[in-house]
């Protein structure tokens, strides 16, 4: 396996893009990424997408988007792993370059969620769960997160309010991200008063579903421009767990996340303390707490204690959701993992502006599929 570097990236704003189709969103992100990576041209395209088949009636996105983005003829496929689709597509692009099969690969995350009404989108997102044994009973992603959160609160004697810090931090960081869906501060006092989605998960515990596209060009070392910053993909790991929440050895342990982090640490030759920022999958506040535990930043049952700016803020011990995370930047489904990758890249290039984590050298990103059956973790490292 040879080293893989990031040559360039692009993203659209996350939001309700009534005026843009799936392919138009994709092209906007791809154009920006190809411009940034010039003169390198991708030899393969890996699309991270979750729901185009269900919500847009569109499959075979690889060929469609290669064609529409001016790349007709290249190898192109879709990678699907629910909310982890973007990270899984990134891993396929990484493997393609690392193996020597191609010198350059384009990873594109794209999702169009706002063409359908809320209950249809909830049911489509719910297809990440077990169709026979979870969704058949009306389980949605928020409902499964609520089952985890209720149990966690019971075991640790917590109230819903004690998770507020995760969403407050996300909104604080989203405020200065021009691509974020929510750019307003969230007050801890108002956190508990939001309408319930699936008790105890309320609207401020959850991330907004939205449209968006982000793209990243990866390449072998000889594809880097001489003066370019050397941002290396230092680790790439994807693990799976028991599929249904009820079948997990412990419903409060994200075992796939834990294993993928351990593998990523080993590949990158570093530990939890060497990571300068962590873009985790904060689709629900409980997942932020559990992901921090799985990554070794807190003991089981104590991840909620990190929900304060001093711990997870831009100047905190382990900054998370530095551009707003899923909660404030928005959750464009299968595109989310590629947004995380672009954000970590910006942090390591030092181009994060008001969202900059000082002296960021290593950044970790993690996507979760459904309630955690898939976890994909990457570490990027700046070699300059």
């Amino acid at each position, binding site marked *: 396996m040879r080293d893989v570097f990031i040559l360039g990236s692009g993203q659209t704003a996350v939001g309700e893009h009534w005026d843009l189709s799936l392919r138009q969103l994709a092209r906007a992100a791809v154009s920006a990424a190809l411009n940034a990576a010039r003169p390198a041209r991708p030899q393969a395209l890996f699309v991270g997408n979750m729901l185009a088949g269900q919500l847009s009636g569109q499959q075979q996105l690889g060929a469609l988007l290669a064609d529409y983005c001016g790349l007709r003829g290249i190898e192109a496929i879709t990678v699907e792993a629910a909310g982890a689709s973007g990270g899984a597509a990134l891993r396929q692009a990484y493997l393609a370059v690392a193996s020597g099969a191609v010198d350059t690969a384009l990873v594109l995350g794209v999702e169009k969620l706002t063409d359908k009404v*809320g*209950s*249809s989108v*909830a*049911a489509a997102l*719910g297809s990440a769960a*077990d169709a*026979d*044994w*979870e*969704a*058949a*009973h*009306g*389980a*949605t992603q*928020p*409902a499964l997160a*609520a*089952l*985890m959160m*209720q*149990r966690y609160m*019971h075991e640790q004697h917590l109230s819903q309010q004690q998770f507020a810090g995760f969403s407050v931090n996300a909104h604080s960081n989203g405020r200065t991200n021009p691509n974020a869906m929510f750019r307003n501060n969230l007050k801890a006092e108002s956190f508990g008063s939001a*309408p*319930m*989605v*699936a*008790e*105890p*998960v309320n609207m401020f515990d959850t991330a907004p579903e939205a449209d968006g596209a982000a793209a990243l060009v990866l390449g072998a070392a000889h594809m880097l421009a001489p003066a370019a910053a050397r941002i290396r993909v230092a680790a790439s790991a994807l693990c799976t767990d*028991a599929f*249904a*929440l*009820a*079948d997990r050895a412990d*419903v409060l342990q994200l075992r796939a996340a834990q294993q993928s982090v351990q593998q990523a640490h080993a590949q990158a030759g570093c530990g939890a303390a060497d990571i300068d920022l962590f873009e985790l999958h904060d689709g629900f506040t409980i997942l932020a707490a559990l992901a921090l535990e799985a990554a070794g930043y807190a003991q089981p049952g104590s991840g909620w204690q990190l929900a304060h700016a001093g711990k997870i803020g831009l100047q905190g011990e382990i900054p998370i959701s530095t551009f707003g995370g899923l909660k404030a930047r928005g959750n464009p489904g299968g595109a989310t993992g590629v947004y995380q990758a672009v954000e970590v890249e910006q942090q390591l290039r030092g181009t994060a502006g008001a969202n900059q984590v000082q002296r960021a050298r290593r950044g970790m990103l993690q996507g979760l599929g459904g309630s955690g059956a898939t976890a994909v973790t990457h570490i990027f490292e700046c070699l300059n």
Partner: protein
Amino acid sequence: MEVSRNWRLQSQRYRMEGLRCEQCGTVVFPARAHCPQCAGESFAAQALRGLGEVYSFTHVHDAPAGFESAAPFFLALVRLDEGPLVTAQLTDVEREAVHIGMPVGRASCVKTASVAC
């Protein structure tokens, strides 16, 4: 749910027929091909009484398509007396009475079946 899918799952969805691993004795529900404890592949039938207690629960307000008329409804993880943890709706319960540890009767979901099928 499609008629054929429901027909395939009827012995489990309506009669809660589980399996017992012949190698290590683990009780499994719903049926699967490999024992989650020992990876064994031979099972004997294991009837489940449908009795257990609430391990976790949620009151779902934002229902997915197909469940709108049922909302709000209780969804729970129920620890069956025989061991398995199952996902089920809780029906015919008082709103304030639901809590972790609450004993439940038959934890299959007749209500879900009639709403969604």
